[in-house]
């Protein structure tokens, strides 16, 4: 099982290495964001948005990439092709998840590293960060799988992905604290899954409010489980 999972993992690595825009979005972009915020804002502000920038990276790396892959591979009959090999759907999915956890951990390390060493951001590292990154990746991989599976065409998959992703990318505390929003938007953003990631990571890394952090981690796990079940229930390699 691991052998097949790793075989597909290498396919993902090769695909990623050949795709310059993917490298840019997943690694260069977060670096730029930290530099921009670090240069124009005081260190406390940067510290406050670091969990947001991490959330932003995990969202863009996982949600948009998996949405595109799930719809494109279905329409190009690559899933049909894979269904004729011993690779199982669960192995494929686990491999995709593993890849996005690693990319997520890498962007975490880059953002925290630059923030800390270049701009003396005041952040705490804690073991709870690991489940946040793992379930964050699982959540957005599952959402991408779901969107890519239900969308009829690649275009509509892209549109739905953007419609779901953009509000989260901007409003959930990624670039500025949620408290900057008008009160009704502060309530509304609670329906956006990334909110629980960013706020929970803020509790763990910045404010040290572990009770609230654990609560938000619980919500994140529940959301990830829900989307995972829905996505894997609908996702098929073969047509009816």
């Amino acid at each position: 099982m691991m052998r097949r999972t790793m075989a597909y993992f290498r396919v993902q690595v090769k695909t990623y290495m050949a795709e310059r825009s993917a490298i840019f979005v997943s690694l260069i972009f977060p670096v730029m964001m930290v530099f921009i915020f670090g240069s124009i804002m005081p260190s406390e502000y940067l510290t406050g948005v670091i969990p947001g920038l991490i959330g932003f990276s995990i969202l863009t790396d996982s949600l948009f990439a998996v949405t595109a892959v799930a719809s494109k591979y279905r329409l190009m009959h690559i899933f049909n092709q894979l269904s004729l090999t011993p690779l199982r759907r669960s192995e494929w999915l686990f491999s995709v998840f593993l890849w996005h956890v690693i990319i997520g951990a890498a962007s975490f390390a880059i953002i925290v590293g630059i923030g800390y060493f270049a701009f003396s951001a005041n952040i705490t590292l804690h073991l709870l960060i690991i489940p946040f990154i793992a379930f964050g990746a699982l959540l957005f991989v599952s959402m991408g799988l779901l969107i890519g599976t239900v969308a009829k065409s690649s275009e509509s998959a892209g549109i739905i992905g953007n419609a779901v992703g953009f509000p989260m990318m901007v409003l959930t505390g990624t670039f500025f604290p949620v408290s900057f929003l008008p009160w009704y938007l502060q309530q509304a953003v609670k329906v956006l899954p990334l909110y629980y990631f960013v706020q929970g990571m803020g509790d763990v890394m910045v404010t040290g409010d572990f009770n609230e952090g654990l609560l938000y981690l619980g919500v994140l796990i529940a959301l990830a489980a829900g989307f995972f079940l829905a996505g894997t229930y609908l996702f098929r390699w073969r047509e009816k």
Partner: protein
Amino acid sequence: MIRVSGLRKSFGKIRAVDGINFEVERGTVFALLGPNGAGKTTAISMLEGLLQRDSGNIEILGMDPWAEHGTVRMRIGVMPQGFNFFEKLTPLDSLVFYRDLFESSVDPESLLRLVILDDSRNVPFEKLSGGQKQKLGLALSLVNDPEILFLDEPTTGLDPSARRAIWSIIRMFRDRGKTIILTTHYMEEAEQLADNIAIISHGRIIAEGSPEGIVSRYGSGRKVVIKAGKEMGDFLSSERIEASVNGKYFEIRLDPETNLSSLIGLIEDSGISYSQLTVRADSLEDVFIRLVGEMSEGELK
């Protein structure tokens, strides 16, 4: 080896496959012929277990390819129509990937040489030419040394020497006692390779048998084919000789009463020049066009 009965599949109102039956023996090549949209790909996808049937029965190696896909897939090879793969993977990467998945002992390099793709072993899939992509599709279908090979239009768009190379792979495969189902639009290919043929139109089999059998059953004897200008047509109609026009070719059917030498004498005496005059029997292509044409006319009525 392969048994299909009463197979049906509809997409909305389109009856893509409308009740077909056939059997394929081990160690033979079976070709599905038919015009665009006849239902060949739909039928073959159901045999491969990639598409669920509406009704009917399919037995592949004694199994149901949809329900027992997990077992069947290990023993078949599939080259789909318009084969697509991971854009950034090279042919070598792709074969290594398949070899790892199947835990097979094939040497990717030798498969690349077999399908004449070794020169492009390191070119990403998206940069391969159409024919090179198909060659990779064929190579991948061979990784697990399958017992049955499904090839949907394997040589469409290939250059003549690549086509012959693929023919020889198919023959080699058959000679090892394996079974092949292929679709094609090239009658020559079917005549060269197939032990048995089914001609499909509108989701139904309208003729089935060996290539020679079909030609002798549905063909209508010999004909004279003349390549000439328009004056030839005028001359023939003035002589009340019934000829069908096909571009620059005039075709005169020879029924048993026609005297070939007097017909040719008449044409020679007319003094009208022609560039070719041949006498030949109906080919598979003639039969195909007639059968499919009759079928469409029947549809119109």
